[in-house]
């Protein structure tokens, strides 16, 4: 059996002086305190040094290589750029444009991509424009979602990151295939599906409680 006061003390709900006073009368808390002190002494076993004599050499070689190929991260964008992209009005305008385009595409006739075959120039243009709109919306959502993702708990963050990476791989695969076969209905359909998937995933992250 435990005394809940020890838990309160560990969680910071009870100050040390009050706990010391209590533990004079409570054998359970005294016992826990003794075990805790013993645990604190033994924690030093976990501080045994890890020997990795060649690690710095590897790191240094890697840093030199990064320096050589000029991978130093680009400086911050200009304030104007940042003002523009972090401006909620801009984001709202982007969202309205996307909604408008989506409604237009939804209500406009003959807009669905055929499952097979070749896309006419007009349809291809519209699809490319739709892809572009998705990409813009995704870009905006990514900026909003970055801090949210960082504040998620570990497992959720890892899961969403994996999901986004998987979708990005598919988008890249589709892009490469479209370089040579740009009017393929099949590939365009999979590309749009991946973009839609990415947008939905980013919205899920944005709405995550």
């Amino acid at each position, binding site marked *: 059996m435990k005394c809940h006061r020890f838990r309160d003390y560990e969680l910071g709900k009870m100050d040390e002086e009050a706990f010391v006073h209590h533990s004079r009368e409570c054998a359970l808390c005294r016992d826990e305190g003794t075990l805790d002190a013993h645990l604190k002494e033994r924690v030093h076993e976990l501080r045994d040094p890890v020997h990795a004599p060649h690690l710095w050499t590897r790191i240094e070689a890697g840093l030199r290589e990064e320096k050589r190929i000029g991978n130093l991260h680009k400086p911050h964008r200009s304030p104007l750029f940042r003002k523009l992209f972090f401006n909620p009005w801009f984001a709202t305008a982007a969202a309205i444009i996307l909604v408008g385009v989506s409604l237009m595409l939804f209500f406009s006739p003959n807009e669905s991509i055929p499952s097979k075959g070749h896309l006419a120039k007009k349809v291809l243009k519209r699809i490319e424009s739709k892809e572009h709109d998705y990409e813009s919306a995704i870009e905006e959502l990514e900026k909003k979602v970055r801090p949210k993702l960082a504040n998620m708990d570990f497992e959720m963050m890892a899961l969403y990151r994996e999901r986004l990476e998987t979708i990005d791989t598919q988008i890249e695969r589709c892009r490469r295939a479209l370089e040579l*076969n740009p009017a393929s209905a099949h590939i365009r359909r999979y590309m749009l599906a991946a973009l839609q998937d990415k947008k939905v995933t980013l919205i899920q992250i944005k709405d995550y409680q």
Partner: protein
Amino acid sequence: MKRKLNLCKVTGFLLLGLLCFFSQIATAHEASNRKAKKTQTKTFSQNVAAAPGKMLRIDGPQADLTITAWDRHEIVIEGKVEVGNSDENFLKDFLSDTDISIESSDDGYRIRLDSPLYEESRGSRSGRFKKVREILRSGRMSFSFTATLNIHVPAEQSLEVDNSFGDVTVNGVRGRLEIRNESGQVKITGCGGNLLLNNSFASVTVEDFNGPVEISNESGSVTLKNIGGASIVHSSFEEVNFMNIDGPLTIQSESSKIVGSDVEGECRITSSFQLIDVRSVRGGLEVRGESSEIKAEDIKKDVFIESSFEPVTVKNVGGSLKVVSESALITAEAIKGDADIRSSFQGITVSAVEGKVKIDGESSNVTVRDIEGNAAINSSFGDVTASDVRGFLEIKSESARIKVMDIKKYADIISSFNAIEVQRVNGDVAVKGESSSVLVEDAGGNVTIDNSFNYVILKKTQGSITIRGESSSVDISQIKRLPPGSKIDVKTTFNPIQLSLPQDADVTISAFTEFGNVRSDYPIYIQQTEERRIASSPQQKGTVVRLETSGDITIKKGSLN
């Protein structure tokens, strides 16, 4: 008036003019669109004699493939390539460079749809189709390419298929199947042999397959139906459905909803964040689902479940059940073997278990009922209710309200800060409560209570009674039986002791109180010392009764039982 009429005329002409202007634009636009796309087609037909035991390899870049078994000993390939673009000469050149090639080797044949697109997509540095490839690379055109291959093969043919951005369908082939596809649906029906399938971003359906299957589908759904062998599935993010698997089944997934039934052998499932629903498994079941709701029903052998945060429901298990969970609501019912459940912060309900029950529920409400074997419950901060346990019952708890009834053997309970109620226990009852109110009613064996700061009430006991209380009032009444050699030993402080003995009981009383009075229906001598008042029976016979407190002591002769 004339002026108004002129104005109307001008407006009308203007509107008409605008209408003509816009319709011209629309027509021109439509016409230009119609002019833009031209398509050209080329068909192929080739055949080759099949050789038993040989492998047929199919490289179909961005092609829809249909492979069908037949009863002839030859392989027939019929293909169609369609290309589209505004430059017809380019299309002509492209198609003239496109053909089906069949290469033979020691172990079989390789069928390839040779084309500039295929060469370019492979990144080949060969000089083949240079002119067309250069134009393709330039990206100056809205080129499109589709291909369809229909291949007939002998039923026993083994196949190796490598494809992307096309659908693959295989019917009736009973050899070894190895299929790698990307971004296209795959459908395998009525086949046999064994299947190794790798796909992504589109659905995979395997039905009526008479052999083992191993499927990897990244971000694509998987449907398995009527599989005649062991099945292994790797998937992510999309649903996995299975039905009627005649062998063991293993599903390794991430964030996939998994639903299925009727597995002949062992079933192992790993997923996360989505529902896992498994029914009718004739072997054992192992499920690992992080943040997954898990349902398991009608499992013939042992069940192991590891989960967190979402409910787990298990019914009808032919073997033992083990659940390791965190913050999950657990419901387990009708378990033939033992049940071992670990969870926290959510309710745990276990019923109809034919073996032993062990529960570890931190801050969980725990309910167990209808247990054939023993029950051991470890919990804190949540209510514990146990009823109809045919073995013994052990409860270790903290700040939990405990309610226990109908225990065939003994009951051993530790708790604090909340009520403890024990009713109808055939064997001994031991209760350790700190600041708990304790009520024990109808205990067949000895009763031992250790409590503080709250009352102790005993009714209908049949054995010895030992109570150690600190500031606990004690009330013992309706004693059913005082067997020979039994004793009543009650010690508490600052609170009264009230004892009602059976009418016909023979007792030897010793009562000690510091500040209270002693009232007794039995004859007693009272002595007053400096520290306390002592009451004792004049003669020593029958059940020894020792009562000690600093409050009042009342000993009554109760009504007849």
